[in-house]
């Protein structure tokens, strides 16, 4: 039989073990978080990707993009860069044309290019011009996202902003 002193020492040791178990669990959790952190992309990396994606997207060319003006289909003959198409859309939306006029033959083709450059990320493109004219292509923005913007001159010299948001689901 263990005497009172031995029982007391064992009780102290068990209390110490419990404290060490809790401390070890915290340290193991920290080690796991470090490992996961190394495998996922860094914020700086995501921002750099968004910037490169925006630059690459705006330079891509689209041939014969088309939209509808009322019931009339309008074909943008020849090749035009995505940047020019977006600025033209902004001017037309500012002139009263609805967003729905720029369907699969216009925004749909821009979206196809953007999706190929996004490498698994979800994205939204927001264009805004003078007089609070703006439109967006893509889903609603979440709180955590990366963004990249450029300013461009429209045909009449007015400034327009094109912003690309990307995030991982």
């Amino acid at each position, binding site marked *: 039989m*263990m*005497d009172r*002193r*031995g029982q007391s*020492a*064992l009780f*102290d*040791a*068990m209390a*110490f*073990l419990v*404290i*060490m*178990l809790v*401390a*070890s*669990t915290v*340290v*193991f959790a*920290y*080690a*796991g978080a*470090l*490992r996961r*952190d*190394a*495998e996922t992309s*860094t914020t700086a*990396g995501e921002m*750099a*990707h968004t910037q*490169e*994606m925006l*630059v*690459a*997207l705006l*330079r*891509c*060319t689209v*041939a014969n993009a088309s939209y509808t003006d009322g019931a009339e289909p309008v074909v943008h003959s020849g*090749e035009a*860069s995505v940047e020019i198409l977006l600025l033209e859309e902004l001017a037309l939306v500012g002139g009263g044309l609805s967003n729905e006029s720029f369907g699969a033959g216009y925004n749909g083709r821009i979206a196809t*290019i953007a999706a*190929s*450059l996004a*490498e698994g990320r979800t994205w939204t493109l927001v264009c805004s011009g003078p007089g609070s004219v703006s439109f967006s292509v893509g889903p609603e923005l979440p709180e955590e996202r990366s963004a990249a913007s450029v300013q461009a001159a429209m045909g009449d010299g007015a400034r327009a902003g094109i912003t690309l948001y990307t995030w991982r689901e």
Partner: protein
Amino acid sequence: MPRWGRGGVGGFTEELPAMLVVLVAVSLFVASLATAHSSFVERERWLDRRESVSSVLGLLWSDQELTEGHAGMYDAMTLADENSTSYVVSILSPAVLGFQYRLEITSLDGKDLNFTVETGQRPTGKPTVVESSPCNILVGQGHVEPGLVRITAWGFVR
């Protein structure tokens, strides 16, 4: 007067179970500290390697020879030139970089354009770092396609 009995010297055998429990507790904590330290060192090394590989993408992005002066826009004609492979290896020497790599520049427009440079045989099971970046490919007559530069690196010497 006996100097020891069932309790051993100074009651040592009474303290033995307690000592074993303390040893287990301390060992567990030391093991967790060692794991955290190794994770920290591994993470730092991984981030360093990713940074090195990303800097290669940055070099390619602005290389005058491959992009004809338009950063991030690779000329399909230049990539098709057989001297381009040796040019890339000359500016991105594995001996200087400290790792072997496979570089791919591909068109995302469904075209059969795939420029590949591989500096060595990739060993299976070894850690690799993969970094990629969107780019453009200029395909004659002003037609610009979306593209992707991907670099897979392995065999890090540091």
